[in-house]
């Protein structure tokens, strides 16, 4: 009797699987009904445009799971791109510039992390500040220039695809990072510590998790990934400018929330985040193909977001209510005659 409970469908209906199913439904529907959707070129556009968001979503998922957030990722990406452009103009080799930019991203992430962990400031406030500061530095570094003449083979890595397939070259790099992120979050003590920290920082600390160190490292990795995204962005769009990736942080947070990562921390999966990222990306691609105006696209994305924040909460409340009824039902015979 008790074994049958595992077969209950409701146990398998989680928000992130719902989002995954929606993504598959959208893809299948678009293949069948939307002209020009299913060809290799369009799919490569879809993936290429979504990759910056998909890249940052990996560390952002970890941060949000641990109960923190980084809103400066778009600015860090822009700053990396700007520095990359300035150094390139200065005649430095691209093979030197890229590691330097990654290092810079790491430093940006460390600054966020130190402000949060050492001074105990809320990450929302800290990273809103550095969102402005990093963008400002980017503007100082590169000014009004845009640098476009990066070497051909690097531009091809940023924008080209593998042969005539739908897979952008840079997607291979992303898949490797995705696997690493998935393993770290879901199959290592680090991942478990992140969940524990997000669920209750106090309890995690008592359980012997070095919460501050964990957060500092997560912020640093986020900065590093943000600068990687900035480098990819500059190569993908063949343009390093100080205002590259403006607003990227909002797309990432939107996609991560849509993927069922709880804003309060402690809950979520990498798979859910990826499904959220590509659901938004595919939706945008399809809406453009069927001529939905830019303004209406924003409205659709906004409504989806509200639903995605509400959805899991409502589902959880229903589940708790049901559980309470069940315990009440089983407990009732035991405490008969309380009067």
């Amino acid at each position: 009797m008790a074994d049958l409970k595992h077969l209950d469908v409701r146990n398998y209906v989680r928000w992130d699987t719902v989002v995954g199913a929606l993504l598959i439904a959208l893809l299948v529907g678009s293949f069948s009904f939307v002209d020009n959707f299913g060809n290799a070129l369009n799919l490569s556009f879809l993936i290429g445009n979504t990759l910056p968001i998909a890249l940052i979503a990996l560390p952002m998922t970890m941060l949000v799971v641990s109960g923190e957030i980084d809103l400066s990722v778009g600015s860090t990406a822009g700053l990396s791109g700007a520095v990359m452009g300035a150094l390139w103009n200065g005649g430095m080799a691209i093979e030197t510039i890229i590691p330097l930019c990654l290092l810079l991203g790491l430093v940006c992430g460390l600054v966020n992390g130190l402000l949060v962990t050492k001074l105990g400031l809320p990450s929302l406030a800290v990273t809103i500040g550095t969102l402005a500061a990093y963008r400002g530095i980017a503007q100082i570094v590169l000014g009004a220039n845009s640098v476009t003449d990066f070497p051909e083979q690097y531009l091809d890595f940023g924008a080209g695809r593998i042969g005539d397939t739908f897979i952008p070259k840079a997607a291979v790099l992303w898949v490797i990072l995705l696997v690493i992120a998935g393993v770290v979050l879901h199959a290592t003590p680090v991942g478990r510590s992140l969940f524990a920290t997000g669920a209750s920082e106090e309890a995690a600390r008592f359980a012997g998790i070095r919460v501050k160190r964990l957060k500092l490292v997560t912020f640093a990795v986020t900065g590093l990934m943000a600068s990687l995204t900035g480098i990819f962005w500059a190569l993908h769009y063949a343009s390093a400018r100080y205002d590259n990736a403006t607003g990227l942080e909002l797309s990432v947070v939107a996609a991560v929330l849509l993927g069922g990562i709880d804003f309060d921390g402690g809950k979520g999966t990498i798979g859910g985040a990826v499904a959220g990222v590509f659901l938004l990306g595919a939706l945008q691609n399809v809406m453009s193909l069927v001529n939905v105006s830019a303004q209406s696209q924003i409205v659709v994305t906004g409504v989806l977001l509200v639903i995605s924040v509400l959805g899991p909460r409502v589902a959880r409340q229903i589940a708790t209510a049901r559980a309470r009824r069940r315990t009440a039902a089983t407990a009732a015979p035991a405490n008969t005659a309380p009067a």
Partner: protein
Amino acid sequence: MPISQRIAASVAATAALSIALTACGGTTKNSSSSSDSSSAATSASADPNAPTKKGLTVAFLPKQVNNPYFTISDNGGKKALTALGSSYKEVGTSSGTDTSGQVSYVNTLTQQQVNAIAVSAQDPGALCTALKQAMKNGISVVTYDSDTNADCRQLFISQASAEDLGRTEVQLLAKQIGYKGEIAILSAAQTATNQNTWIGFMKDELKKAEYKNVKLVKVAYGNDDAQTSFQQTQGLLQQYPNLKGIISPTTVGIKAAAQYIAGSKYKGKVQVTGLGTPNDMRAYVKNGTVTAFELWDPSKLGELAAYASVALASGQISGTSGQTFKAGDLGTFTIGDKGTVLLGKPTVFNKANIDSFDF
């Protein structure tokens, strides 16, 4: 603390690695010098007597949709396309600096296999890969108002030569302030290609002897946002109390500057000129805030872009300099250097003539 040591160690390692890589050399700006001058698709032959095709679809991709200037311009394109028996569509981002959005619109249009794209580029380089992809798929590509790199499109429909615009704006303002005093520029975004080119010519014009008493004190940026431009104007006047004039080479900026000055003690003391539309500026010209400003006719710019797109898609021209094409009532145009087609000299608007324009 072990953690800080470890971080310091990894930072040092990365730095050492980068230095090692520098020593090894690598791909630098000078070594690659990827000046691929293979101008895309211009090798296609053109037949000036080919019939003008009907039933084409030409898509307009402005820098920003719902920007009044581009609305007028694109409506000019629509008018020309209707007259030619082809269809018009407009797509675009709602932000003027969303370059990735513009790229994905180009990609979408490539997928939809439109016949021609007329685009006003937010960034000279960012659209290149996407536009080359579009040309490879047989789509004619024209830029208007704001250009890309020359090998990423077939034609650039230029509103007026950048040089003319930059120099005449300085000439207009200098005359209004009697060739003496401090002036400032209120531009749009700091990255706007066309604005920066004009400002470059303004600075060059100011080097001439007749402007020896005119001093450019600041270039401010209002991001083509009415409120920001308004605040920037306010800031300029507070920072430079002796300011005599402001040049705003953008329709949003000049209107905001005129609006601020019209309602302040600076009215009549500080001159505003630049690029504006007669409908926006009529009230300020009539109440004496603004003496004269200039602009090309954006509607004609859109029309010319449409005619050029159809001529390209019909195979009458291929984008090589020296070729000519007919553009309805606008007359016959010759393709100039680097595939540029000039609409003509800018028009100066003042109290005497402003009522004969409605756009």
